């Protein structure tokens, strides 16, 4: 017998030896909550601040200038192919479009990256990226040191169940809550061991 059949057989035998009671899962926890934009914004800004992520509030019309401000003194910026080109119009450095064909190593020379986002959870301050065209492959938001992420308030939900409900399980998904961090040395928090050391979230309050 192959290992698969052996293991499955053992598991079946084990349950036959001590048959479990059927289980009903209680779902009394909170989910599907409605909330005002103001409430979500306030919560999100607070949470992101606690993670030492910088937050910029702006209107859709102010996207380009706010993105330029968030990019600071970066000189070379990478963007995913599906990103709205107007977002980086006011940035004075160089903008390169990343693609699956470019070797990942080139991202090491990049100062920062600008992406959109799929959904954001206010209660935990978590931005979800799902590798859609305006978010790019996973390496794009991982290798460069600065990540500027544009979030529309309309895509912000209150809690984790509301956020998970909007995901497509088949897409590779990255959940980001603040910059990379470690507490491994005497429990002192240090930002940026491997991922981006700086996370800047641009929240478009009318988007």
């Amino acid at each position, binding site marked *: 017998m192959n290992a698969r059949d052996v293991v499955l057989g053992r598991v079946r035998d084990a349950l036959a030896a001590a048959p479990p009671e059927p289980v009903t899962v209680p779902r009394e926890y909170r989910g599907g909550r409605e909330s005002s934009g103001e409430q979500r914004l306030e919560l999100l800004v607070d949470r992101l601040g606690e993670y030492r992520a910088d937050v910029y509030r702006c209107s859709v019309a102010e996207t380009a200038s706010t993105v330029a401000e968030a990019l600071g003194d970066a000189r070379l910026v990478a963007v995913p192919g599906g990103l709205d080109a107007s977002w980086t119009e006011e940035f004075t450095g160089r903008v390169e479009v990343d693609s699956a064909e470019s070797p990942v190593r080139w991202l090491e020379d990049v100062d920062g990256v600008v992406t959109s986002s799929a959904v954001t959870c206010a209660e935990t301050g978590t931005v979800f990226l799902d590798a859609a065209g305006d978010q790019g492959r*996973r390496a794009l938001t991982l290798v460069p040191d600065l990540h500027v992420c544009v979030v529309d308030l309309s895509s912000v939900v209150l809690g984790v169940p509301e956020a998970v409900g909007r995901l497509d399980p088949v897409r590779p998904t990255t959940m980001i809550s603040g910059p990379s961090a470690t507490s*491994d040395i005497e429990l002192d928090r240090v930002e940026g061991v491997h991922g981006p050391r700086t996370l800047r979230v641009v929240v478009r309050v009318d988007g």
Partner: protein
Amino acid sequence: MSSAFLGFPTPPPRAPYATGHLRGDQSFPEAAHTALDDTQQRRNLGKATATIRGKRDQVADELPDWEELRSAGSALKADVLARLPELLERFEREVTERGGVVHWARDADEANEIVTRLVADKDSDEVLKVKSMATQEIGLNEHLGSAGISPVETDLAELIVQLGADRPSHILVPAIHRNRAEIRDIFLREMPGVDPNLDDDPVRLAEEARKYLRSKFMSTRVAISGANFGVADTGTLSVVESEGNGRMCLTMPETLITVMGIEKLVPSFTDLEVFLQLLPRSSTGERMNPYTSMWTGVTEGDGPEEFHLVLLDNGRSATLADGVGREALQCIRCSACLNVCPVYERTGGKAYGSTYPGPIGAVLTPQLAGMHESRDDPNASLPYASSLCGACYDVCPVKIDIPSLLVELRHQHVEQSRYTAEAAMMRASSLAMSSAKRFTKAQRASRLGRVLGGADGRISALPPPLNAWTSARDLPAPPKRTFREWWDSEDGREAVRAARREAERGES
């Protein structure tokens, strides 16, 4: 074996004796003795557990539905165990359909061989590793090493432990027993290309680790990870982390190999909404950990081109065969029970001799690897490595009743150890407190041990014939009833009668 095995001719085998890290070379009391002398470890651990405890309490209290989430999490995990064969088959099908390759491993030896062969097939003599308890459990690093393959731990704490030729002392913060000055020394001694003027500022230390590992991430073609969750109905896998080393390993190399215990499933993708709330809050005391990665098979143009999943038994089916003890398989490895355990806080993780330390380790380790494999098996001491204070049950996000499991394992140990005085006494007097299940049935205070009463919360002397037990140890006791009151009550008498009946059966 426990009574669960009646009519069950060949119980599934435990993890192999000689492979992996599920057994120390000393009993817990002996190992604890050494650990207690290590004042630095005690200080570091005390500080760490108190800090994490405080943060956990705060963020758990913040959620008004925390108890409802725990109930859901607990039931979901119980449901997974109850339907494990069907869910595993579904999971395998989904992973395969999305381009992954599923392997099954009966035990540590088989898993080690599978992974080593997969790495060798790629002509790679170095592999990246994401912190993973399953691979530590099976001793994968040692096995890879013996095949000429160098595993590189990429989690900062695991890297410190690895470079220091040491063993982890905590599930969550494995190098917490090390001070910054020691870490600096380890880096200077063992890390190639390190700045010789390195000081012991954590920022600088982390920077050196970043530099060292960056080049590895860019050049190594194979990575090995564990998994926090596998989603049965979609084939999705998930790794929860902070540093980004997980993201690196899961996306940069050409080949990804994930080793996952068969119990780590959740039924459906939606159920992640429960565990993604329970795990970070219970673990690091954060509302959410910095990074969570989820992937389903392979995605063209994004991440590894090849994905292998190794599903590991290694004593899990044996644990599942015990209708009581199987509850330990619900564990999501958050480490909250370690941080509240007064025994763990003083001894540290290494004293347990296993990849799984602390309260959960004390019930999981003997079940995965057995506790009667040799005379004086060190694992037999683990169920006694607790004061049964119940704090671990209170914090467990999936409501594992660890104190009851500890007592059940003590019972099993005594039943099977024919030669100890305790065994003789237990069998002769049919002590009610010998079995959690019976106890719980007889009188269900929220957890075991509370049934026996004492005004000061402890029992130091029981009336004969039970005094043979208490002469060796104190017992925690319930605040409400004295032992005499319980003894005289109907449920007390019934518990003793039930115990006696079972003991008589055991004798015949």
